[in-house]
């Protein structure tokens, strides 16, 4: 029982990170119907940006307060990751709008290869151990032979995720930008006829997705304590799985999917086999797409001839 509780705590933490990344996939797919294959690598890039700024602040500039340093890292990371996503959209995807359907996907795959290799070349191929921080652990419950713990890191991750999702939900539901986004999702041509700058809206969608991925990147770095240039692919695919499972295009779906994937992954590793945990995720991806293509909360797609 205690063991299960601990796994659920770990799963929710992991799921929060996946959920944050998944929003980037689901929003972009919703608005331009494209799988932004490079999103996982944008996330990986953001872990490196966060690592470098954290080192610069704590080592080079000698910041005493860790909380302040993390806040600055978060803001700078969101800013620079958004800049990357903006530039990628502008240079690699926008020229292909209106081209044949697979062109943006292939361009995105190229971008993904480019980003992971760029980081490999500039930062070196080794794993980077992150200086540890926030090691305090709360003991929740002491069983006979198992102690359930909740670390500050996990609290931070879940707290930040909930806070950001709230802010983000407000943005999409109640602001002009959110309305423009939803309008573009429904009908891009009609939206542009009604005076919405479609290109700008799409750019902002990429920027928001990347900013959330940057948050996920910082949390991921703190949680795992190690980053590597190859960390984009697997978390990216898992977050995409989360988006698909929740129903691609649906924001609450992405978060729900992220939590489910996080839980499934931790419970699978805890009770079955840790070697095959990625197989579990990939199988869920395949099974969902084949049997439930609209996901849990998505709208079924009707094809018109």
């Amino acid at each position: 029982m205690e063991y299960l509780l601990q796994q659920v705590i770990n799963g929710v933490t992991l799921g929060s990170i996946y959920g944050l990344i998944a929003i980037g996939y689901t929003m972009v797919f919703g608005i331009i119907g494209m799988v932004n294959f490079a999103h996982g690598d944008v996330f990986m890039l953001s872990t490196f940006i966060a690592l470098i700024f954290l080192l610069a602040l704590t080592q080079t500039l000698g910041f005493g307060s860790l909380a302040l340093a993390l806040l600055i890292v978060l803001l700078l990371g969101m800013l620079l990751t958004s800049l990357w996503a903006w530039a990628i959209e502008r240079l690699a995807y926008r020229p292909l709008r209106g081209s044949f359907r697979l062109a943006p996907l292939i361009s995105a795959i190229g971008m993904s290869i480019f980003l992971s290799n760029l980081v490999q070349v500039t930062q070196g191929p080794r794993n980077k151990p992150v200086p540890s921080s926030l090691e305090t652990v709360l003991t929740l419950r002491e069983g006979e032979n198992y102690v359930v713990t909740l670390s500050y890191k996990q609290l931070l991750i879940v707290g930040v995720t909930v806070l950001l999702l709230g802010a983000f939900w407000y943005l999409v539901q109640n602001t002009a930008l959110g309305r423009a986004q939803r309008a573009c999702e429904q009908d891009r041509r009609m939206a542009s006829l009604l005076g919405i700058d479609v290109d700008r809206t799409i750019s902002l969608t990429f920027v928001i997705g990347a900013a959330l991925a940057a948050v996920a990147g910082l949390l991921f770095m703190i949680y795992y304590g190690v980053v590597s240039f190859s960390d984009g692919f697997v978390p990216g695919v898992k977050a995409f799985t989360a988006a698909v499972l929740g129903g691609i295009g649906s924001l609450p779906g992405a978060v729900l999917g992220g939590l489910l994937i996080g839980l499934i992954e931790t419970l699978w590793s805890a009770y079955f086999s840790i070697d095959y945990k990625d197989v579990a995720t990939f199988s869920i991806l395949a099974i969902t797409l084949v049997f439930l293509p609209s996901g849990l909360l998505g709208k079924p797609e009707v094809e018109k001839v």
Partner: protein
Amino acid sequence: MASLRADAPQSPWRSLANAVTDALGAALLALGLAVPILALRTEQNISNELILQPRWGYVAIAVAGTFAARLGYLLLRSPKRQPRRVKSAVPNSWREIAARSLAVVGLGLLALYPLIALALTGKAGAIKWIDNFGIQIMIYIMLGWGLNIVVGLAGLLDLGYVAFYAVGAYSSALLAQNFGLSFWICLPLAGILAAFWGILLGFPVLRLRGDYLAIVTLAFGEIIRLILINWVPVTGGYAGISGIPRPTLLGLPFNASEEGFAAFFHLEFSPVHRAIFLFYVILALALLTNWVTLRLRRLPIGRAWEALREDEIACRSLGINTTTTKLTAFAIGAGFGGFAGAFFAARQGFISPESFTFMESAIVLAIVVLGGMGSQIGVAIAAVAMIGGTEILRELDWLRRIFGPDFEPTQYRMLLFGLAMVLVMIWKPRGLIAFRMPSIFLSERRRVRADLVQEGHG
């Protein structure tokens, strides 16, 4: 970044000022992107702590380079041309003759390639050119042609093609190791097994299309790779399988022994014999793939594939059985992937899951797409350009003289590969050979213009 308006009449000074402003914007963007990923390198010191190593020089180069490139592009680009409406003066039949002669010349060059390499570089130097360039490129041409059946003809985007390559390689290696079968028996068996896996993985994805199909096939490819890694008793895990028997020429092994190839023909033993032999084997396999594809295109099944690519719903309304059509495309494409895998295993003598990562699928897909999906010669050209281009990076020693002795051109291989994929998509989204010759026609065979080609629709 405010872009220059070409339509408004402007004084040269004003347009220069605009260009400079624009280039400054681009440089500023480059600065933002380069900080911190390029400016500060994380390195581990002796006590395993990460420290930052500033490299602002690189940032300055990147920013200045962006500025110069953007400015040059803005000032030197030709004013926007009106889209040409003039019909090409060259009649279609001439072009066809040109295309055909290109194919014949290319084929001749391929057939003579090992001998040319041998003549130019001698026995010791030729191995590198035949093995690293010739065989490597031919493997990718064969994979590209195999995937072309699935992606180019049937219009099913497959991101997990490497799974069939892996199935072919592992089944032939396991058959050879456990049952002592020779390469020539393993080869067809590997192809058949891979085709069987193509059907098996094709079944669940029958109703998916476009991006979803791509992602599911990617998942299947990864699942197969993870099983290869984790099923240690059979596959050897990360260690892989080694000691796979090399192919023989009618029972003559390519070694220095008494009954070897060299001894039989009273030649001096040289490892180049095996390289040349392997080159011709893969050439024959690739040409077989090409020939089968060309013949299949004329059969009803090939026409059904192409109809499926153009419009699945119309296809179904006309009574074409889309299930069998898709499954045959998957099976035949996978079968050729399996042949290539068996050849790969025999050529290397060693296989491990490292060789079957998603990156390989992406490379093969990039070759098919860059070549212009459906075009056989385009795929071959793209494979030569991409694989040959990245292999040639290994040879660029003069770069080391410019950038210093630590400069390692090969680490930029995949970086350039990814960049090339993006750039070619922007420059020619439909690939190098964008037009299409119809397989069946009424009275005159006319090429279909690139802007009318709409694959990946369904």
